[in-house]
């Protein structure tokens, strides 16, 4: 059974059918890329997965061995907390006045809240709470190392550069200890060097943890290089899915990206 199953997912806003009958599966230790032209519904898929939009019809299931979560019936915060789906945002959403370390500790709210006895043992300063806090800080520290921001740990998030903020957002999502990580255009606005670093980071996360990663990305080089599976959306419909090499030669994908084939040339596009 796949980790995440999306079955016949549809959503409409008023009269607009933003997603039409989309189905796909995501396994752990895999990177799945969702691509498509602007307005194809890629971010809408994320918003459905993470509970920000309520689904019009269809099912989204997360299988955790014994338990199965029906995401379409859960609130956003429950999905993140219980079904453990973490995400980043297209327009970065950090806690800008708080320090990097604090950003990563907020991500561990669930664990810390329980450890602090819903603030009671925390107020009394019991040792169990102190231990849990130290562990949380350690985890945050590890992630700050991985995203190469450890020396900025005590600075406010606002003071980071754009690329650094993107990395911090990924670290924050990872601090929730997710099973599925949804990255919404993580390379947007990065320079080629930062973009390459980011690819390394994503591959590293894939190799070192056993989570499933869903990636929305426009840079085809990145997509083809690191993904195991590619899903192509256009106007809210899934038009293709498969391995990168399959997608590259799929005529419908080429059509969606480059427009109608010209009848004069017979639809072949020169490389």
């Amino acid at each position, binding site marked *: 059974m796949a980790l995440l199953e999306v079955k016949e997912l549809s959503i409409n806003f008023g009269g607009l059918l933003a997603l039409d009958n989309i189905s796909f599966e995501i396994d752990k230790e895999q990177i799945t890329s969702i691509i498509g032209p602007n307005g194809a519904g890629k971010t809408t898929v994320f918003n459905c997965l*993470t*509970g*920000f939009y309520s689904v019009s019809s269809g099912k989204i299931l997360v299988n955790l061995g014994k338990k199965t979560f029906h995401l379409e019936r859960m*609130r*956003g*915060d*429950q999905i*993140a*907390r*219980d079904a453990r789906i*973490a*995400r980043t*945002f297209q327009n970065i*959403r*950090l*806690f*800008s*006045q*708080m*320090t990097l*370390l*604090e950003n990563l*500790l*907020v*991500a*561990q*709210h*669930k664990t*810390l*809240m329980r450890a*602090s006895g*819903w*603030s009671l043992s*925390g*107020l009394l*300063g019991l040792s169990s709470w102190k231990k849990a*806090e130290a562990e949380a*800080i350690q985890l945050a*520290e590890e992630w700050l*190392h991985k995203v190469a921001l*450890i*020396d900025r*740990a*005590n600075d406010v998030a606002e003071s980071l550069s754009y690329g650094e903020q993107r990395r911090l957002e990924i670290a*924050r*999502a990872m601090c*929730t200890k997710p099973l599925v990580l949804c990255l919404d255009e993580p390379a947007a606005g990065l320079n080629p060097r930062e973009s390459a670093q980011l690819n390394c980071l994503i591959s590293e996360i894939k190799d070192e943890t056993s989570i499933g990663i869903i990636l929305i990305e426009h840079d085809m080089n990145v997509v083809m290089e690191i993904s195991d599976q590619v899903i192509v959306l256009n106007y809210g419909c899934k038009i293709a899915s498969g391995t990168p090499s399959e997608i590259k030669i799929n005529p419908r994908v080429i059509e969606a990206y480059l427009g109608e084939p010209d009848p004069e040339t017979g639809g072949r596009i020169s490389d």
Partner: protein
Amino acid sequence: MEDRTQKKSEMNPLPLSNWHAHRNAIMDGLISCLITAVLLIPLTGIYSVQDGGGLALKYRIWELILSIIFVFIGRFSLSLAESGHQKLSICGGLVLFLAGALWSGSHGIIGVLGILGGVLIVIRSLWSSQSGNFTGSLECIKKLFQNTNKQWSPHLSLIMVLIAVIFPFLPLTDRWILDLSILVMTYILLGWGLNIVVGLAGLLDLGYVAFYAVGAYSFALLAYYYQLGFWICLPLGALLAALFGILLGFPVLRLRGDYLAIVTLGFGEMIRIILINWVSLTQGPNGISGIPRPTFFGLEFKRRAAEGAETFHQYFDLPYRPIDRVIFLFYITLGLVLLAHFFIKRIRNLPIGRAWEALREDEVACRSLGLNPTNIKLSAFALGAMFGGVAGTLFAARQGFISPESFTFIESAIILAVVVLGGMGSQAGVALAAVLLIGLPEWFRELEQYRMLCFGALMVIVMTWKPKGLLSRRVPSVTLENIERTRTGG
């Protein structure tokens, strides 16, 4: 004239020669005198009195001359300070100060302004000696302050607490000052409570006075109907206020910013109007009197005890002093303020405190990380309201009488002003602002009708100078100590 300005601009960076500097300063002073005279002759110089059937004009010659002289000395010394003639300008400032002090008895406001002006001029001249320009000297002071702050901050807070503890027994302290300090501390509690809601969780609450009223009325009503004492009503009042906080929280969960402010404003008014109109329970606008005073382990602070009981002074075999009751209330308030301080300081560093701040920064991101905004908002409302309730109970105990009149919108506005002026989210800032906003207007009651004018001016000055509040620097809830080590190690 042209010649003079040219010279001035040429030589400005260097100290002017004595003669030029003095001449410029005198000219500045004379011009200021002229402006003052033009302004003050109609404003202060002439006033009308009822004389039989009509109005008669009277003149305040002395005040007029005095103000003009003060302005001259002030402007003269300020010019000297600006051109670097420190000694003379300090002398001028001191003269102004002394003159102000001398006349503050007979001419009230003019004397006080003279004192203030003198102090400002002395400060200005001292600053200009530290570094060349005004902003530079500001930086200088800031650095000095930060350095001393770092070294002395633990000692400083201890010293402050010690001063507060011996405060009732200082020779200058009288009943009026004690009463005022209790009021100020009540507002510190209110400010800290509202600070949780507005400063930390970022939920603008314009009806905070409602919780103050709930605390005060729960004590008054429980005492009136069930003869309960202060010590039982204190936690009950806090609990009830917290409950009302949750009650308010539920309908406004989805609102933000302006909309939230309007609904909370309405909530504050609702509570007050209920208190006025539910006459059978609350005695309406007449209020409730005879609220019992706090007791010392059951011992009352009265001259004569009720049947079969003893009073505080009888038990300890002391002579009866009416001030003892006020001193006792002072200590209760002080204890509660210290308790509140440690509570809030602690809870800010717990996950719940960080969650409040995260919610203020970005609610969507909070949800994506598994934080439940509903619970976090409700906990902020409840805890904030709890402090309002405690403050309300104290207020009722201090006054002995409460009526809905004490819980109007202006109270909410003042508490919010305390939070904003102090710096959102800053504990020390809120305390400082409470002292300034509550203490000073009471202190300067002699200024009479100028009091609120000065108060307004002070707020405008502070908010232009420090738009984020007096002490707005945010201290992180947790910091990584060994960054250097890890940097070199990793």
